[in-house]
């Protein structure tokens, strides 16, 4: 993701991601046309579903909240040169922490149990990332492979816990009992009702503000703190960092913990903000979307906010679209996400090389 010197900053920050996005949407459009639907009409339906009416916007922002957290998780690791594919598993385990706290302590008042649950999400998510981080730093095993394996291990572990240990008594579905209301993060429409502002009834909740705060904090820590400087140094050149006396191993482990903790906070939005119980597979690919969000957002908070919004809109708009057009299921969104990851994360040379050549020519002619 190096920035070529002969391309203006605005082009590499805005033009490239947009070009990649259009390329991905174009290929999706081709597939939609292939199955006999009108891509332009579908795009309109999707935009309308995501932004066209108050409930749609609420749901879009709800999905955006989770994607901000998992996007930040992937970005944090990227800044240290690590590719954390384990967001899915880290979020799942964080959900376990949240669930354990809520099942034990949800008789306590909200201002005790919610912070406690957040702490548990951070600890459990961080711990699930700690092991791959430790193994990468101390034993040299590749973080990508280990985090993939940890996703599978998390999935098996949680299946066992939900089926055998945590399942609500007398129920057949692998899910916990509903948490008491004390543990629910307040919905936005409830928060704003006393102020006389009427918002639509959606799962959008106060975690959204937490996500915005995380974005600001991320910016401050990564670019304006010694810890961020050290992290980026390790990411840019590990050997140089080691030579400069930076404890690279410690940085790698710490960054992975932070990354896992960020992914873990997405579980708060899902469990305490919306479902109010733990269901099997509640992460539902949110951890993987974080990869796309971070790549498209160029690991910068502003970019992550915008691309999380884009993916929130894709998710909500896609769900609406699948009601209107039964042929286009939510898997179409997974396909589009994959395309965006491919174009933004692995095929940047496709447009970068000809574009920077074009800019070079333009500059020469001036």
């Amino acid at each position, binding site marked *: 993701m190096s920035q070529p010197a002969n391309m203006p900053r605005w082009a590499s920050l805005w033009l490239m991601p947009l070009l990649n996005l259009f390329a991905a949407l174009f290929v999706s459009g081709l597939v939609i046309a292939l199955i006999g639907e009108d891509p332009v009409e579908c795009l309109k339906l999707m935009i309308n579903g995501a932004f066209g009416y108050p409930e749609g916007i609420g749901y879009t922002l709800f999905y955006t909240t989770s994607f901000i957290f998992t996007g930040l998780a992937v970005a944090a690791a990227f800044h240290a040169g690590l590719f954390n594919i384990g967001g899915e598993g880290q979020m799942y385990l964080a959900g376990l922490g949240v669930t354990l706290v809520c099942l034990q302590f949800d008789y306590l008042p909200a201002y005790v149990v919610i912070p406690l649950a957040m702490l548990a999400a951070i600890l459990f998510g961080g711990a699930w990332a700690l092991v791959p981080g430790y193994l990468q730093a101390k034993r040299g095993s590749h973080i990508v492979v280990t985090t993939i394996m940890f996703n599978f291990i998390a999935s098996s572990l949680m299946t066992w816990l939900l089926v055998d240990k945590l399942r609500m008594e007398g129920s057949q579905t692998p899910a916990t009992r509903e948490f008491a209301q004390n543990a629910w993060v307040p919905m936005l429409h409830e928060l704003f009702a006393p102020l006389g502002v009427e918002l639509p009834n959606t799962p959008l909740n106060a975690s959204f503000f937490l996500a915005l705060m995380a974005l600001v904090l991320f910016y401050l820590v990564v670019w304006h703190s010694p810890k961020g400087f050290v992290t980026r140094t390790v990411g840019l050149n590990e050997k140089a960092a080691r030579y400069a006396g930076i404890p690279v191993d410690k940085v790698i482990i710490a960054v992975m913990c932070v990354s896992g903790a960020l992914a873990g906070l997405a579980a708060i939005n899902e469990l305490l903000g919306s479902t109010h119980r733990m269901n099997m597979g509640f992460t539902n690919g949110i951890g993987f979307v974080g990869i796309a969000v971070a790549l498209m957002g160029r690991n910068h908070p502003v970019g992550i906010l915008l691309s999380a919004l884009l993916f929130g809109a894709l998710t909500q708009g896609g769900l609406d679209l699948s009601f209107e057009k039964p042929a286009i299921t939510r898997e*179409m969104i997974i396909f589009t996400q994959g395309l965006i990851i491919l174009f933004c*994360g692995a095929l940047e040379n496709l447009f970068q090389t000809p574009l920077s050549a074009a800019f070079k020519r333009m500059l020469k002619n001036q």
Partner: protein
Amino acid sequence: MDMIFSVLDATLRVSTPLVLAALAGLFSERSGVVDLALEGKMLAAAFAAACVAYIAQSPWVGLGAGIAAGMAVAMLHGVVSITYNGNQLISGVAINMMVSGVTPVLALAWFQQGGRTPTLSDEARFTAIDLPFADAIAHSPALKTFFGHNILVYLALLLIFVVSWVVYKSRFGLRLRAVGENPHAADAAGISVKGVRYMAQAIGGALCGVAGAYLVLAQTGAFIQDMTAGKGYLALAALIFGKWRPWSAVLGCLIFAFTDAIQIRLQGVELPLIGSIPDAFIQALPYVLTVVLLAGFMGRAVAPKAIGVPFVKSR
């Protein structure tokens, strides 16, 4: 006794697609290209094999389609990783998501049966081959374990020999390993690094094609959404477990398949000393083993040196 044979029988059946995919990964990774896309290649192949075998009513045509689809996905991975020097890890993750998303959409559009394809009739599947001494087999569970399979099982077995010969004894194999260990030296010796890497992708794609086709044509009889269910990653784990060597990787596949086969038998069975083991633990075993091995607690797994690094010709 019967139980032992039925476990071995199941192990052989489950290990076949793993072995094929692990051998596919071997070519790709030995050439220096990380192959997280094994999963996507297999899934695409399974889908193509299911569609074409249903229309053509022939398993062989279906197998051909599976191989073609596996190779097509491999070429996409190749274009991204080899021609455009893209991030191979990200390419693999992206391809897996794309295939997992697009296949159920197409299945729904073409066959209107949810995210799956119609069930194949017996003529369109690979069934156990009839041997002249079939009667003798029917009475002996031991013989049945080794002779009562479909042709792809034996093909996979044969391919293990072929692959290990190709990788270690043939000219192409020498070049493959050279390109994966030190591409600049190979380049200086006049070997086309990109050419060898594309060739490795093509072979790997074809092998994944057979693996994916096997899942449909020999096992389920239809394409089901996300039917590979992590088998590509499992094969990759076996490859790492086998330290990027064909026979050791096959051994890894057999161990993983064996744990899968005994998992069904161990459900609810009380073992002496340990009691009953939850099947989630057995399911997680291959992944735990891989992590332990990668961490160097069971001998060091050393990857091909140039793996994951795009080759940029020095001038």
